[in-house]
């Protein structure tokens, strides 16, 4: 009686959700690992087992490695800028200033909008508004569109990413600052700790759990940037701002090298998993209880 009942329970409660999850995430993931050992081209019915040839293809795909390197540079700059900026703004917001909630809501707005639309909005700002500033003021920084020169296009991508992501991180840091105990801060002031000493020895250690979350979120988001990359620069000029995620897409769906593309996607996955795992391990160690 009992077993029959729990079997029914399982079918009703657990099975539908598990089915969706397995069919969409786990099976494709495993099948993807298998695909890396075949020469499937996306159209034909036959797939031949070709061993490690796709991985050899990845090694000789210079563009992949340069896009991966570019992604690393992008991730480092974005993660640092986003977190420093968000931390600073959250600090200013939690000093008991009027309109705190209004500011916080405003800063978060870009996160409600998809990367595609944001990229187009900024494309207009870079190619028309900034250029107009350059033309009227003679300010040489803006005289040509940032998106037409490789280094500046890269900087533009970083600027927009920081603009978007920092609003999200502000929310988390604000929640962290609000959780700081008044008593501890007061005790530090009474003991004569200066502003900087308080920040370094008390605020930072107590904020470590927020920092762990924010670093993790910014890392994983920055590594996988695609929508914004596509709509803001679409890899241009001349493919100089093509990030790893975009390269994988192009490799598979434009060049129709599915096996190589999938192998690159797996390598990217392993890189991201290792780096974010390491980051969580390292920053978690720094967390303290008040």
């Amino acid at each position, binding site marked *: 009686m009992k077993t029959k009942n729990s079997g029914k329970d399982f079918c009703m409660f657990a099975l539908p959700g598990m089915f969706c*999850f397995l069919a969409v995430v786990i099976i494709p993931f495993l099948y993807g690992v298998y695909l890396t050992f075949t020469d499937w081209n996306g159209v034909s019915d036959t797939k031949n087992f070709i061993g490690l040839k796709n991985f050899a293809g990845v090694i000789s795909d210079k563009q992949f490695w340069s896009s991966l390197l570019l992604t690393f540079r992008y991730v480092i700059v974005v993660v640092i800028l986003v977190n420093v900026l968000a931390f600073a703004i959250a600090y200013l917001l939690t000093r008991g200033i009027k309109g705190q909630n209004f500011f916080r809501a405003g800063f978060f707005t870009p996160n409600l909008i998809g990367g595609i639309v944001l990229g187009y909005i900024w494309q207009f700002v870079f190619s028309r508004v900034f250029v107009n500033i350059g033309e009227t003021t003679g300010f040489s920084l803006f005289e040509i569109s940032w998106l037409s020169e490789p280094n500046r296009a890269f900087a533009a991508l970083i600027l927009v990413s920081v603009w978007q992501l920092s609003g999200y991180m502000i929310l988390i840091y604000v929640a962290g600052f609000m959780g700081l105990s008044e008593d501890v801060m007061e005790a530090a002031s009474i003991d004569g700790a200066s502003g900087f000493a308080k920040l370094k020895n008390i605020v930072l250690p107590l904020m470590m759990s927020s920092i762990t979350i924010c670093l993790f979120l910014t890392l994983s988001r920055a590594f996988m940037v695609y929508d914004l990359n596509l709509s803001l620069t679409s890899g241009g000029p001349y493919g100089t701002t093509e990030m790893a995620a975009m390269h994988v897409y192009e490799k598979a769906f434009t060049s129709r090298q599915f096996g190589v593309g999938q192998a690159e996607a797996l390598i990217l996955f392993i890189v991201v998993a290792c780096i974010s795992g390491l980051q969580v391990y390292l920053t978690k160690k720094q967390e303290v209880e008040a």
Partner: protein
Amino acid sequence: MKQTTVGGNKRKAANILAMAGLIILFAAYMFPFIMVVINSLKQKRDIIKSPFSWLYTIKGLSFDNFVKAFTQMDFLNAFKNSLIVTVSATVLVTLLAAMLAYYIVRHNNTISKTTFALMVASMIIPFQAIMIPLVSIYGGTLNILNHRATLVFMHTGFSMAMSVFMFHGFIKGNVPIALEEAACIDGCTHARTFFQIVLPLLKPIISTMVILNSLAFWNDFLLPSLVLTDKKLLTLPLSTYSFYGTYSADYGTIMAGLLLCVLPILILYIVLQKQIIGGVVAGAVK
């Protein structure tokens, strides 16, 4: 005595400085949106000449751009598609994830443990590592791409792990088993117990998950772009993409189109601001 006034003044000055800094930063953050609003009412020539204000326009201001964008983007249709997909996927994932999480919490068997461990581990897999085999299976073998239902199913599957994780934590901490035992003694079936007793208790976490999931579904681009190619089925981000491809030089129309895309979310945000921010924070901190 003197000391306190100095300290007070210093603090006041610091606060004024902080306020000034915030206002400048805020203006910088809002700048792109302001540009969109201003230029959506202007014609191309005026936009190129001076994108900053509504003054000195030759052709004047008008809503022509909006009319053009609205029809060219097939806005209503794309909006309808986005709404259908978002609402059905959100309802489906919320219900299925709550049920699965409930099962996992209340049945401490091997299947529960394995499923849960698998889900937690799967959360680090980025979408890009799955998209190619996904297209290969659903486009090639099963050939069911280009249906809204397929997209809904995939959205549900992809957000399942995170949702189950969140529900799991909530049920474990906030749903007392005594209530269910009482219901069981009163002769209530398991299904009825779940829907009438457990589900109402989950309200806070349901609202968090609905907000997080529906925002993600509404704005998603990559997955819908792989699943839907039929022009009639395009969601809002997809139709924006193809619209921009055709009209990228027609700045006024583009700005109006982008504003149309953003407007529904912004209106919702103004109404539900507190809940949305609360939901996002709860979702991130867990």
